[in-house]
């Protein structure tokens, strides 16, 4: 799965956690989940759990802390997928 494919999948994962669907459609590596998409910081945990389920991977606490921007989310997911 390449980065573009992961990005498209990530949009679906993020969708229930943001009301701003226009911004979501236009996300890129620099998009900040909390500042730009106005995602409640408590929901980052849910996004990680949903991503784990979707990709059947385990994202440890340290990696999870890096998932602040869309780019870093893709980095972590791509890394986990490559380990499979």
């Amino acid at each position, binding site marked *: 799965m390449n980065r573009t494919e992961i990005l498209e999948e990530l949009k679906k994962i993020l969708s229930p956690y943001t*009301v701003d669907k226009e911004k979501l459609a236009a996300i890129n590596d620099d998009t900040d989940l909390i500042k730009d998409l106005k995602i409640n910081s408590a*929901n980052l*945990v849910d996004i990680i759990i949903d991503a784990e389920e979707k990709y059947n991977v385990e994202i440890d606490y340290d990696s999870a802390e890096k998932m602040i921007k869309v780019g870093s989310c893709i980095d972590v997911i791509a890394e986990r997928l490559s380990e499979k």
Partner: protein
Amino acid sequence: MNRRVVVTGLGVVSPNGTGLPAFLNALQNGLSGIRFMPLYQELNFSCQVAGVPDFEWEQLKSYISEVTFHGLKGTNIGYGIKAALDAWADAGFAYDTDETRWDTGCIFGNSIADTEAMKNVIIRVDNKEARKLGSRVVEQAMNSGVTSYIAGRLGLGNKVITNSAACATGTQAILMGYEYIKHGYAKCMLAGSSEYVDPYVYGAFDSMRVLSRKFNDQPEKASRPMSATAGGFVPGSGAGALVLEDLEFALERGATIYAEILGGSSNSGGQRGGGSMTAPNPAGVIKSIEEAVSMAHISPDDIDLISGHLTATMADKQEIQNWSTALKRGGKDFPLINSLKSMIGHCLSAAGSIESVAAILQIKHNFAHPNINLDDPNPGILELIDRERMPAIQVNKDINILAKANFGFGDVNTCLIFSKYKNK
């Protein structure tokens, strides 16, 4: 300063009607909301009927954001949100605000988190999967979940309190809201309560042998307050909410006023003098009614209608006796009395708020709703009050003053006095 407190908005999720028009229609036509529950038969419960609101979960999307809706599992919270936000809109207020509404608070009660939803939490933890629970469990497991969702949606910034007093929860919430406004702490309070009786809570009541079990094949006949064949209560679920306001504040903004709260009292019989965890001490009940009448500065003779607790158990007769003693009225001189539980069962924490919404609608529309299923009044009750004081069909008359009481496990009592609003 003598502040007056009025009711300016109502919202309801009741087994026999969700939303005010449906609920009013149900009250006026004696419609039952009690249904047969196939699951309860499967589970070998003795009582297999319940009061279940017609509630489309997806409709919550028009009340709360998609993000909040996603992951909302607590049925009690869903009912509470709908009733509270309907009441808020009914009072003429907008949902959205950028500023905190410092003058308005929320007192919403409930008994317990949705155990059915919590079951999934327990299973995950037991499977060593606690890390998969996510962020949305705690806010729905906490008793204050319901007030947190409501107050958060509306930006309420005054006192935000969750109360719990078993079956007296709803009336107690309204009394507390009234008191905060009366004492000048808040201009407006959104007060109410909700209850979702899931199979686990229901099962526990079933085991106490306090539920109706002889009418499983005739669900609408199963809840029979004050009748000789009353054989236990029927659990019900739902929510009720009232917007309470300082009269001056309400008049200034041109609000529509449904009714006035003249006073009330909340106490406990101390689980003494015949009172226990599950039974009220009559002295406590009588004192609560007497105090409510006294706080409201009315005479017992002014009461046109009593909305009783009257659950359809052995306790109904004692309750009538207590009212009769407290008000010093009996026979033909007793006020009209009715029990909404004949139509919707006993909604536990939500009973007081749903029944208060019904009380205010009866004041506004000048009627006493029927006691359905009262074909065979309890002979013991007939020794205390006249048959026609317990109407089996709707009575159309001016209802100026209405007394509403609920009595709960833990020997807690609350009595409220509602009145038509008069610009005296």
